[in-house]
């Protein structure tokens, strides 16, 4: 069995990650489809899917539902099913507040706070954090045999993996703690760091923002214990035996460099890297078996020879880049997937899945 075959059959959690635009979302969907067709109940949680892929999965923006939708026609297997959900940082944040903030009044106070409104969608790392929060919810629900989580492009690997820690750090920051001590008015905040902080905000952004900020921090107080606990649990889940990280890259140097960086970060963090996928690889031309005449004038045949020569050079160049990744692979599988024509419908995803699971790699 190829590595990704066993991942599809046995893992409980798959995380796809990698640089921007290399096919993480598509790979996540293709692996999920393969697992569903193997008879498992699977959910794929995607970030920002291409429009037609979203249509295929039934999660296009117009019908954006926050609950999982079953993908129609995904499988005929009697026990298999494929579910999909789009990840949206802001709505996941809202949902977390609604679930965790306690009484309705408090929930409303937070949700309508202007500082919260602007934080929810854009707090650095919010998307990454939400991917992880969502994962925790799905994992503890126990409703699925396999959860496939797609991640936003991570230029800095740390962004994704450190997201839970960072949010916890935010909530345990001394300034934050001082600000949230109930009953203490902001005029009497004596901690030097905090008063400097508030003074700075007031000077820079005006008193209204200071009030909103304090109000926001206060309304969140009490939630951080839960946050911290879930972050710790999620950190465990991500390192569990049932989890497989799949690193996706393209054979272009910028992507490979980033993938190398990410692979290192995964190793250092103790995350189980099972496979590296190099997607969008150009096809290797068959050898010409003859010398190209040096004095061939421009014409259709020259065009064809030129393309042959360029593709041959490109493929060699790509192989060289992939080798950098291969030397890092250790026991992780390295799977090459060719540049395909159309992978955004179920048929295309199945073809992509065939390449991913192929034993040749």
């Amino acid at each position, binding site marked *: 069995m190829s590595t990704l075959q066993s991942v599809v059959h046995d893992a409980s959690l798959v995380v796809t990650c990698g640089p*921007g*635009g290399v096919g993480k979302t598509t790979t996540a969907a293709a692996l999920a489809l393969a697992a569903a067709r193997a008879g498992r109940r699977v959910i794929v949680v995607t970030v920002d899917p291409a429009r037609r892929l979203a249509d295929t999965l039934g999660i296009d923006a117009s019908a954006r539902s926050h609950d999982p939708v079953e993908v129609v026609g995904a499988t005929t297997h009697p026990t298999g099913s494929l579910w999909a959900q789009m990840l949206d940082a802001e709505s996941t944040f809202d949902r977390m507040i609604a679930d965790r903030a306690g009484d309705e009044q408090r929930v409303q106070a937070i949700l309508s706070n202007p500082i919260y409104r*602007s934080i929810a969608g854009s707090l*650095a790392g919010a998307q990454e954090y939400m991917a992880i929060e969502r994962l925790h919810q799905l994992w503890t629900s126990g409703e699925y045999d396999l959860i496939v989580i797609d991640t936003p492009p991570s230029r800095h690997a740390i962004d994704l993996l450190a997201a839970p820690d960072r949010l916890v750090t935010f909530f345990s920051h001394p300034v934050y703690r001082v600000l949230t001590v109930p009953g203490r008015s902001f005029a009497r905040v004596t901690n030097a760091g905090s008063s400097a*902080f508030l003074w700075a*905000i007031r000077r820079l952004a005006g008193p209204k923002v200071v009030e909103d900020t304090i109000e926001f921090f206060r309304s969140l107080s009490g939630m951080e214990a839960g946050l911290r606990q879930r972050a710790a649990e999620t950190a465990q889940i991500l390192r569990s035996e049932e989890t497989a990280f799949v690193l996706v890259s393209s*054979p272009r140097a910028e992507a490979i460099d980033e993938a190398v960086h990410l692979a290192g970060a995964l190793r250092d963090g103790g995350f189980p890297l099972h496979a590296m996928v190099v997607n969008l690889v150009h096809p290797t031309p068959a050898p010409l078996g003859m010398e190209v005449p040096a004095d061939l004038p421009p*014409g259709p045949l020259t065009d064809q020879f030129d393309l*042959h020569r360029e593709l041959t050079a490109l493929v060699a160049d790509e192989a060289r880049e992939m080798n950098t990744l291969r030397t890092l692979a250790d026991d992780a599988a390295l799977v090459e997937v060719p540049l395909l024509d159309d992978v955004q419908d179920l048929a295309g995803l199945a073809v992509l899945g065939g390449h991913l699971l192929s034993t040749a790699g």
Partner: protein
Amino acid sequence: MILPDTLAGMGPVRATPVWLGRTRVLVVVGKGGVGTSTVAASSALLAAKGGADVLLVAVDGKPGLGPLLGGQPLGPAEQTLRTFTRGGGRVRGRTISPEQAFGDYLELKGFGRLLRRAASAASFDLIAGSTPGMEHLLVLGKIKELDREKAADLIIVDVPPAGHAAPFLRSASALQRAVASGPVRDQADEVSALLADHQRCQCVLVTLPEETPVNEVVELAYDLEDDLGLALAPLVVNACWPERPGLSMSAAAAAKQQHMTLPAATRRALDGVVRFGRARLDSQHEQFARLDEALPLPRVQLPRLPAARLLPAHLDLLASALAAEPIMPQRVSQ
């Protein structure tokens, strides 16, 4: 007109395309993986070859642009990457991080020690975290300062990648909504004014001739133009397969036209690449047609280089391609 526009008779100095000389600030924007940094670097090179003093600013701190232009990896300290004796042009490069921009800002505004202490590493996270968009605004504010100081003839900004471009550029208008007064508000107002000023600032959108990047760039173009009033420079379509009419026929037919006969193995090998190449060209034409329909912007097409890793020599090639007269959409669609 900021760049020298009459370079006739100056030999190999390259004439700068009109659009590139139109404003001092040029912001390069695109989704991850489409090549915004490459386009930023090649534009810098092209303008410098035309005699301009260019400052290339990498916002997300991609250090690799430095070596590609013949210098050291980019860092917060400015360095000269390339100079051209012929026209007197040069390319300088640096990164700008929010922390650094914040420090500079406090310096500039003459804020005291207390505030600077508040801005120390830990509190910076808090300030940035509790005033979202602040990080972006600080960087844009720094660019606005560079423009005001006339720090270069042309300031090219390589915007953060993948999904962050829109929030980055929108940070000022978002903060204008959230913050009613104070220096942050002033800063946001001034940055918004710069972005919307067609005499001072324009935006180059970069995409690939593929379905998803085309969808995304169309969306982004309307967003930036409608919401922020940004002036859009010609669209750059990167990594285009070179047009090769010879790919429309079989190897045998092509050989016949050129009075050659090919061994069977050669024909098979050529037919294989021809099939692949034609499929790419067909889908590329389809994407050009979609752009014609959806985006009334002139565009410049950059060739796909047959290499997986970009080398300094490639940048010169791309700079020449950028110098081409932009294609008007209707002309392509006829």
